[in-house]
């Protein structure tokens, strides 16, 4: 896979591998909007709709110990 030229070159050392593969993380870095709290609304909505469609899945989900993190990026940067 070839690297696409970007107006602002991001050093590979600065971002983790996951962030390099994550378009949103790249955009935040390029725009220097590090504090931006981005939530992947479409993924969030799809999961919510799945639980709405199938009550048994929602019931089982409620029985899990840890609630499902619906935010896209669960990893917090230090």
């Amino acid at each position, binding site marked *: 896979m070839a690297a696409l030229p970007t107006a602002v070159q991001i050093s590979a050392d600065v971002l983790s591998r996951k962030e390099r593969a994550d378009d949103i993380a790249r955009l935040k870095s390029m725009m220097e909007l590090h504090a931006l709290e981005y939530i992947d609304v479409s*993924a969030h909505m*799809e*999961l919510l*709709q*799945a639980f709405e*469609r*199938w009550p*048994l*899945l929602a019931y*089982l*989900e409620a029985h*899990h110990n840890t609630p*499902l*993190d*619906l935010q896209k990026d669960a990893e917090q940067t230090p």
Partner: protein
Amino acid sequence: MIAMSLRGVRGGVGTSSILAAVGHALHELGQKVLLVDMCPENSLGLHFNMDLAPREGWARATLDQQPWHEHAWSVEPGLCVLPYGQLQPDEFIRLDGLLLEQPQLWSQRQAALADAFDWILFDLPQRLPGHMANPQCSISIMVLNADAACHVLLQPQLAQTPLFLVNRFDAASQLQRDLLLIWQHRYTQSLVPVNLHADEAMGEALARSEPAGRYAPTSLIALDVISLASWCLLRGRRAE
């Protein structure tokens, strides 16, 4: 030598068919493969045009205190199947107790086979704890279908078998897409990153006594299984 086991989260999810197909695919990729039937149904060999429920096998030999390794069938050079053998219900329950008493039994056998094979694949049964726990495997995979019953059964069994593989996936099904979405979010680390699609060729292959990759090499399921075998090779190298 890498040992891998497959076990269905419940019966009927297609575990033996996958095991036969993956064994065949690994062999096609140049690996020496032994498939071991750990199920009293004794029917794994049907995927390779062997007899139905052969009398002799490792379990029969173990109970009879006979050499267990003399009953393997060679499908082709570098691809062998070791049947279970015929046991009555009281006999396989007795053998299960024996396997619980001797937890090292299969790991000793695996060590003895290490020079002859690159892979040993175990087809594990349901509800026989001695059979399920005895082989020492660096890759243990639970097989399930994307349905609500498997979803119910998945969570309690993940502690025991932390990897799971989706079989008979139908992307046209809203429920299956939703379940996969939930699993991808909740069990990111546990989900084998290859989904095996629902494909008529898988069922037809058994009806022809062949693994899927030999019966229909260009079918969707055969390509899925090659992807799975390639993932196994990468994962196995990491595990060794």
